[in-house]
């Protein structure tokens, strides 16, 4: 159900930028920390786009691995599990460098035919 809400948000933003043009594909960057299941997102995206200008559009998602940085010792690491204490100094002040994205990078739309003659 999580992916249903997220798909609705993706489609709403997509259609706003499509400005009435049919959407062929959506390019996204999704961080591993967002707990998105790719198959689930694809499934719900297909459902939510039905009957809209984005029907049949391909969802092209680049999944970004989590990368953290300790603010105390500067160590950077890519956590496998959701473990946020610094593995070096045990510090709690951790910056998320990557992995929290839920971004629509771009969309591909079909332009309308130009009229042959102008009024």
């Amino acid at each position, binding site marked *: 159900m999580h992916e249903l809400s*997220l798909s609705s948000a993706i489609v709403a933003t997509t259609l706003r930028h499509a400005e009435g043009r049919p959407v062929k594909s959506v390019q996204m960057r999704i961080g591993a920390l967002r707990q998105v299941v790719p198959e689930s997102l694809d499934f719900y995206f297909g459902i939510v786009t039905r009957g809209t200008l984005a029907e049949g559009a391909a969802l092209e998602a680049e999944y970004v691995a989590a990368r953290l940085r300790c603010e105390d010792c500067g160590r950077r690491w890519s956590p496998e599990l959701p473990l946020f204490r610094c593995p070096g100094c045990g510090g709690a002040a951790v910056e998320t460098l990557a992995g929290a994205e839920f971004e629509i990078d771009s969309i591909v739309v079909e332009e309308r035919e130009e009229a042959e003659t102008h009024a």
Partner: protein
Amino acid sequence: MHRTKVKIAEDALDANTTIANANRADFDRHGVGVVNFMSAPGAGKTTLLEKALGGIDARVGVLEGDVQGSADADRLAALHLPVVQLNTDAGFGGECHLDANMVRSAIPDLPLAEIDLLVIENVGNLVCPAEFTVGEDARVMVSAVTEGEDKPLKYPLMFRTCELVLINKIDLLEHLDFDLDKFLYHLDAVHPGVEHMLISARSGEGIEGFRDWLQRVARRAPAAA
């Protein structure tokens, strides 16, 4: 016919964030502190509010979010404080969480000029509510000891987005194989140093601490314009 790539570079949840900011502006204008109260279904949110809001030194209002019915709102209305029920199945497609738009729709019904603190009791769900801010000052969650020690590892987003974790139903500890140290270890691994409180709505243990915390949120809000 040709195709164009349109560069967007926008967070897909931007629309929700924009509305959440508008909500926040309304709450700030009236000097109301807002708490987004979340948990899995049945962890004890409503019962904790029944205990903590009784006798609280602040004027409190509640926005109650549920898929269906007014059971929770009815219970809290008995405390003689303003309660507004928001059903996600009444025109919002039965959503499993509250989002900024839904909360905005309830604002006209909330007596913001007459309260210092608004508690938004979210729909019971550990996944979706974590993704959608609604204009709150603070996010609090409840994890009951009956839910097990692995919860923080399974729902890191929810445990990380909250600034306070209430560990509820501690009156049941003697009947359970729940390992509290293991839970706290996992909690610290996922959200290092997060404030947490051991609490029991049933026995009353820890309720005063939670009540004090809520009163501090009420005082955190900017003075009414």
